[in-house]
């Protein structure tokens, strides 16, 4: 049976891609953020995932408002990193785990999650950067399954619904009949707001409370509506929904292996958490 080794959740600010490309990891501005990853990499080396289930939000690359999904799952043989408008360097393509994708697709739709099934899909920084954090040489040693959550068009799937999607993913992986290790990732957030007169809104207190809840009280954030989350965490802070899906997928006893929190990277409260699932 498949085994969920744990979850890694992390910020995915696009400018990090530029910093990686320019080799600025030791630059004083970037160092506090990149310092969060060596410990995460050590843990990943120890738990040896075969597959990453990547929960993220597309930023208008693969999806547009002509067909804006609430939840989508990739069921493709590979996922290409392509130009998303700003000339961030692209990365090598990611190999899909088609068997696990279709298993999840079947299980989630059977569980009354109305997934969009994507047999072809390109991925943006929200997918590629977290992969590059863990594997800086960009030689991906894992297969991937993308799970996409709408954070573009309101209403968003509620925090409660996202947590339940995570639980359904956890059940489905647990029922998968191959003996593989699965790492769940959730990307985006934490608090930030790019647009409007409130641009630059950051909420350290909320972020720290949320990070604590990820370990000790995982349904805490499900009390908030999508607009509540905007109020507290900013218009893009809502990307924490991806973290909630990832957390919901952890089926066992959850322990904090590592965390990092730093304000600001770009306009964002940048955070990383490594949660083991036993």
């Amino acid at each position, binding site marked *: 049976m498949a085994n969920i080794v744990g979850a890694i959740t992390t910020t995915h600010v*696009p*400018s990090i891609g530029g910093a990686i490309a320019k080799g600025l990891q030791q630059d004083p501005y970037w160092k506090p953020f990149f310092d969060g990853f060596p410990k995460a990499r050590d843990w990943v080396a120890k738990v040896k995932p075969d597959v990453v289930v990547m929960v993220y939000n597309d*930023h*208008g*690359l693969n999806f*547009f*408002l*002509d067909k804006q999904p609430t939840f989508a799952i990739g069921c493709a043989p590979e996922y290409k990193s*392509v*130009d*998303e*408008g*700003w*000339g961030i360097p692209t990365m090598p393509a990611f190999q899909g785990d088609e068997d696990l994708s279709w298993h999840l697709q079947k299980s989630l739709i059977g569980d009354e999650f109305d997934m969009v099934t994507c047999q072809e899909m390109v991925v943006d920084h929200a997918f590629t950067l977290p992969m590059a954090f863990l594997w800086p040489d960009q030689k991906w040693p894992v297969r991937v399954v993308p799970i996409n959550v709408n954070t*573009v*068009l*309101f*209403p968003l799937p509620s925090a409660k619904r996202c947590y339940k999607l995570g639980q359904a993913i956890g059940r489905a992986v647990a029922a998968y009949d191959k003996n593989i290790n699965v790492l769940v990732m959730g990307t985006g957030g934490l608090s930030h*707001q*790019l*647009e*409007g*007169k*409130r*641009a*630059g*809104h*950051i909420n*350290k207190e909320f972020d720290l409370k949320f990070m604590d809840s990820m370990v000790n009280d995982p349904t805490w954030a499900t009390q908030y509506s999508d*607009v509540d989350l*905007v*109020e507290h965490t900013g*218009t*893009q802070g809502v990307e924490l929904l991806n973290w909630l899906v990832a957390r919901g997928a952890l089926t066992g006893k959850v322990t904090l292996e590592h965390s990092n929190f*730093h*304000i*600001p990277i*770009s*306009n964002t*409260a940048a955070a990383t958490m490594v949660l083991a699932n036993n």
Partner: protein
Amino acid sequence: MSEKRVIPGTTIFDGDVARTGYALNKMCYSFNEKANREEFLKDEDAYCTKYGLNDQQRAAIAAKNVLQLLAAGGNAYFLAKFGGIFGLDMQDIGAQQTGMTKEEFKAKLVAAGR
């Protein structure tokens, strides 16, 4: 329908906004492709016409003004691709919207971490 909740300085990109902004967001979505960015730069006006932008949207694009683009129904995720054409980073855009200098805006972000 019930009154909408207001969060000062913040737009919720819901159906009402998405309706007014569709042509603008569709144009910005096209900027994922380099050929389209170049076509836009060669003749901004013709490109706006191709995507059916209304006068308010054209004016906001011409002014490269983010608050105006938002008022015209733009969504931040798509507008970011427009901003990228001109090499604006998120602190440039934040400063423009809040009426600060870029240095002031950055200082505000740093202060939020204390």
